């Protein structure tokens, strides 16, 4: 039913339109922004959320496998946080299907991410007069770990894609052709649907294992700690990322190797690609699907087939994917540019004031 005409207006008709920004409480979001960039929210104050979710790289980090809290090392690719508030489930395995409050908690407290005792985090925030004022102005009262986990999601609500050629209706002819392939011959839209180009579901496309995880003992320890905590059996003898199995624990293992369909927004800033960063460029990704995806002996999605795209078609598809990237969210509107104090202020009349 879709015509071959172009642009966002038509795309909206197919469910592909711009991402609609949620309503924002400006003061809460501003507080969340400062918290997001503040390294004092990690156990040893070495890293902030922004250490891995860097605004210059579309709130990802440019690495195949992420870094982690000191003493650990990552075993997955850092996903972008742009449009994250629209997701139905979070992390590459989709293990949290509730809300960003829970996602924030998990990211702050997991030993391999920020390793923060939230009670200590609360007391740190209470020691900073800037926070004391910001929490009050935001209507939260005094700083608390509960309101930290509300303010950060409110800031994440502000990270919404804008200004892409796709949304503005300024796609090149090649990208327009690519969009048609996307919906038609290439079959991408079977999973990459809606304004964010994702069905928010998990699939196994046979993305190859990343050998770096198993070669680097620190990355591997991090995976083991994760797998142990998630209740994965035989975790010492696994040499693959089990993906959605950590959420659904299917007895037949049919969920092993399934990962969330990623959004295709802002790909220009978020290379490398896939849950383990195994693909460096969008051309690599298109080639991968053109060959019918990767090998997985058991759980590979049956819809994947060799596509038979010509070189021109592949280029058109890649050029469409690039047209889904918009403005870099790297100005003061989205980035806390202020410095953080090197020391905590002392509460001068300590004996007199209530804690």
């Amino acid at each position, binding site marked *: 039913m879709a015509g071959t005409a172009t642009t966002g207006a038509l795309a909206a008709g197919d469910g592909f339109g711009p991402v609609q920004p949620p309503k924002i409480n400006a003061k809460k979001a501003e507080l969340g922004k400062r918290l997001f960039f503040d390294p*004092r929210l990690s*156990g*040893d*104050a*070495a890293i902030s959320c922004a250490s891995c979710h860097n605004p210059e790289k579309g709130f990802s980090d440019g690495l195949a496998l992420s870094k982690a*809290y*000191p*003493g*650990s090392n990552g075993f997955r690719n850092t996903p972008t946080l742009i449009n994250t508030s629209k997701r139905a489930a979070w992390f590459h395995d989709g293990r949290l299907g509730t809300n960003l409050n829970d996602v924030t908690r998990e990211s702050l407290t997991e*030993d*391999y991410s920020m*390793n923060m*005792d939230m*009670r*200590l985090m*609360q*007391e*740190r925030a*209470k*020691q900073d007069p800037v926070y004391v004022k910001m929490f009050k102005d935001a209507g939260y009262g005094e700083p608390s770990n509960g309101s930290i986990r509300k303010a950060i999601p409110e800031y994440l609500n502000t990270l919404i894609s804008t200004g892409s050629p796709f949304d503005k209706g300024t796609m090149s002819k090649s990208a327009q052709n690519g969009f048609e392939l996307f919906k038609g011959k290439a079959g991408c839209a079977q999973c990459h649907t809606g304004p964010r180009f994702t069905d928010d579901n998990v699939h196994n496309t046979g993305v190859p294992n990343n050998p770096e995880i*198993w*070669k*680097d*003992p*620190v990355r*591997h*320890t*991090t995976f*083991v*700690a994760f797998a*142990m*905590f998630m209740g994965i059996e035989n975790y*010492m*003898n*696994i*040499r693959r990322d089990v993906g959605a199995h950590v959420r659904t624990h299917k007895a037949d293992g049919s969920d092993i190797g399934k990962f969330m369909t990623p959004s295709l927004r802002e790909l220009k800033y978020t290379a490398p690609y896939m849950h383990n960063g195994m693909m460096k460029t969008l051309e690599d990704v298109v080639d991968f699907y053109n060959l019918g995806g990767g090998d997985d002996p058991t759980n590979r999605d049956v819809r994947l087939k060799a596509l038979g795209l010509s070189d021109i078609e592949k280029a058109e598809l890649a050029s469409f994917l690039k047209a889904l990237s918009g403005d870099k969210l790297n100005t003061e509107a989205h980035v806390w540019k202020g410095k953080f104090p090197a*020391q*905590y*202020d*002392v*509460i001068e009349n*300590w*004996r007199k004031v*209530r*804690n």
Partner: protein
Amino acid sequence: MRFKKSLIAMTAFGAVLAMTSGAAMAAGDPDKDAPLAPLGDPPIPADNPQTPAKIELGKKLFFDPRLGGDASTGCIQCHEMEQGWAFSDALSRGYPATVHWRNSQSVINSAYLGKLFWAGSASSLEKQAKSAATGAVAGNGESDVMEARLAFIPEYRKAFTEVFGSEWPKIGDAWRAIAAFERTLIHKDTPVDKYLAGDKKALSKSQVNGMKLFNGKANCIECHNGAQATDEKYYNLGVPPAERWLEDGLAQITFRYELYAKGVTQEMYRKMKDDPGLYFRTKQKRDMGKFRTPPLRYTKYTAPYMHNGAFWDFEEVVQFYNAGGGDNDFTDGTMAKTKTKILKPLGLSDEEVTDLVAFLEAFSGPELKMKKPKLPPYAPLPDVAAAN
């Protein structure tokens, strides 16, 4: 309603007071005090026997910072060998970006203690090791990640299999090995031990005089008694609150964190400005500000003293007792009135203070040092095909 409640509280408090002071008046001494004695061997728990391989493994683990959150903070970081196997500051260093909130106690002779930590919150060295490695202002490690790290250190893998028979290291066994090592950190070749064993030349004249004061006029023996020189009971002496809480934002954060983490009422969280000690365990107001009597051996190397490191040398400690102890929020009624009735001004002369200090020094023999172990490196695990 409120009036009635406080009346009941006062009655109960009065009854306790009467009992304590009654006994004290009768004998000048609330209980029977075991005399000082040479220290024997420490007890070894039946479920964690000592073996050379276990002790050797425990030694390495004690020195290994990978048993902590960011792999920078192991046991040794707050129990520095060169600092009396303790930490030479009033408050222990704590995890990076934090400061601890109490003085780090020496590991030496901890094997003899029935309960560990200043308020006795751990009932074994095994449990103490775990608590210290996981607390947010101590090791800040999580069991899963620490256990995973051990599996990637081939030398440890082999040692855990040999010692504990498991295919992979278990974190609980790491604490057992560390406890076994700590049970070898024994200090009993002190002048006091020699003297009590019959070597009358082991103490100087001043020290012998100090011992008489210890057992008599100064009444130290009331609590520092028996072979360990501690009754392992809990008292509020009126040690003043840590000065650092007045001066350092980082310390103020930790102080509030402990109130929050250990669980007090909202009102107490708001009002408390000093460490309530044993109260955290019992939640009884009568236990506020009480800490366990520390043993005295090896203390020459473990300054500063008291649960918050309030005193920097033995003379300050002795002068504190000579003045009848001190005052804090739990002596003056701000939060409670729990100061022990045992303490009274002692009226010690300068010479007597000197003698007592000299005797305290005789609880320490030669410093206990060892070569730090070389820590084994990580290595990748064999791939599955090769492993199978």
